[in-house]
């Protein structure tokens, strides 16, 4: 369902088709083109008071041409309002980091990198956060099985034949 508001109309006229404002179950989100990141995020913070970045996450759709969705969940204390920003990116493509916009993005982007292998350009210290540094594979991709493990890492570091 389309989402209409004065704020959205303003950006719509500015960016045209690169921006698709939608709403579902009363929650608003902007599906934006990859090229508008991070400009649109910076605008939302500076001009629309979305000063709190609640979460950054991703989802994997292996059958799509651009298989990854990157999702920013934002909140504004002044407006008491949430908005989600969504963009699609190709496998292996990178996306600008928003650590300069919200410092909280640091660990959140590291987790997205760890789980999906999406790289964030300009991140101060992009490395794995929950899995060990030497681990191979990104477990939240759909092609990573639920029982799959990096057996080589397990054998070298834990000294056991299998983690199962």
């Amino acid at each position, binding site marked *: 369902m389309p989402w209409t508001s004065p704020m959205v109309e303003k950006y719509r006229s500015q960016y045209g088709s690169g921006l698709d404002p939608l709403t579902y*179950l009363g929650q608003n989100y902007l599906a934006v083109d990859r090229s508008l990141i991070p400009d649109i995020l910076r605008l939302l913070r500076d001009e629309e008071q979305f*000063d709190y970045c609640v*979460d950054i996450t991703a989802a994997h759709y292996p059958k799509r041409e651009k298989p990854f969705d990157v999702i920013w969940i934002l909140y504004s204390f002044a407006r008491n309002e949430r908005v989600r920003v969504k963009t699609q990116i190709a496998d292996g493509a990178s996306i600008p980091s928003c650590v300069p916009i919200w410092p909280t993005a640091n660990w959140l982007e590291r987790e997205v990198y760890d789980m999906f292998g999406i790289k964030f350009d300009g991140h101060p210290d992009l490395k794995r956060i929950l899995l060990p540094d030497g681990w191979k594979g990104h477990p939240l991709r759909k092609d990573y099985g639920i029982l799959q493990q990096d057996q080589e890492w397990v054998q070298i570091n834990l000294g056991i034949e299998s983690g199962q």
Partner: protein
Amino acid sequence: MSDRKNDSATDVPVHSLANLDLETPEKPYLDSNELIINMGPQHPATHGVLRVILKLDGEKVLGTECVIGYLHRGVEKIAENRTYTMFNPYVDRMDYCAAVSNGLGYCEAVEKLMNVEAPSRAQYIRVILTELNRIASHQLWLGTHALDIGAMTPLFYTFRDREEILKIFERYCGARLTTHAFRIGGCQYETYAGFEKDVKNFLAFFAPKIDEYEALLTTNRIWLERTKNVGVISGPDCIALGVTGPVLRASGVKWDLRKAQPYANYSKFDFEIPIGTNGDTYDRYLVRMQEMRQSMRIVEQAVNGIPEGPIMGKVPKVIKPPVGEIYHSIEAPKGELGYFIVSDGSTQPYRLRVRPPSFVNLQALDLMVRGALVADVVAVIGTIDIVLGEVDR
């Protein structure tokens, strides 16, 4: 361990007496290199398996780096391979000190996605149990935090009183910690005979106990020395770092999701949001003590107003939310706990993301301890109130 690339703690020059040239006083007796030491993951003051690498100048902290993930179980991956109902007990294992809150957030998120609502009686039961759990979580925090700082007595007091809450949980659903108290659409169990009486007895029993905790600590000079102006963080810094919960409120930001975006039936109850002014460890202590009192107020109103009626809403046997996505968050004892669920119309979530308050709040540790002493690191880890099960998921 030695094969790990991140083991930078070993690249430190070895200091021994032989290196000291005691004959030439123009040279300093002890060289003043920066020292990198490792704290955890097996350490009694890190509240679980948290590893912190500290860069020190003498006793002063120059910087920290948290190494986490020791308790990673892949909760989000598990969710994609379980049905909505099967995943429900797993959420209790994230923040296991506040399992009821986790369950409330998850059940409400799925209910919102399916566009159903729990009946009024179930909402009241949910609020009573969730607020009791908030008290239990804060009690556990207070006991362990005070123990870390050196006050051993409060631990015994808080654990003694927390037992009474766990007994109510046990009588209600058979479990004390990982309660699995709620179901999607309402509550599985009707309250047991004497539930209201037990809750009221607890309130009467617990009111003087908070005063007892406060008598032990609030004006205790050692406590004041160890907590005042320790781990200070400002309100704008909290917002920039995404810090929520009591830590944010102690920095003077009056924001609580129960008031800002009421969920369940919190809008029916009269309570206040306690805030602090300095954003230090002492203010966070005061805020949490006040929160326990406010939770008691909510429980009292809820238990007196609990209506008759069904406890389960109209939910199909097989839960199959329509295609779509939802973000729903609640005010857990540690901060904003959010669930982002993407449904593809099947019985299993296509993607389920948990926004854990402990994980995001822990990121502020570095800012809060820079320039402080090593002993303050222990105090600050305690005051953020992390649960590693939720940090690592």
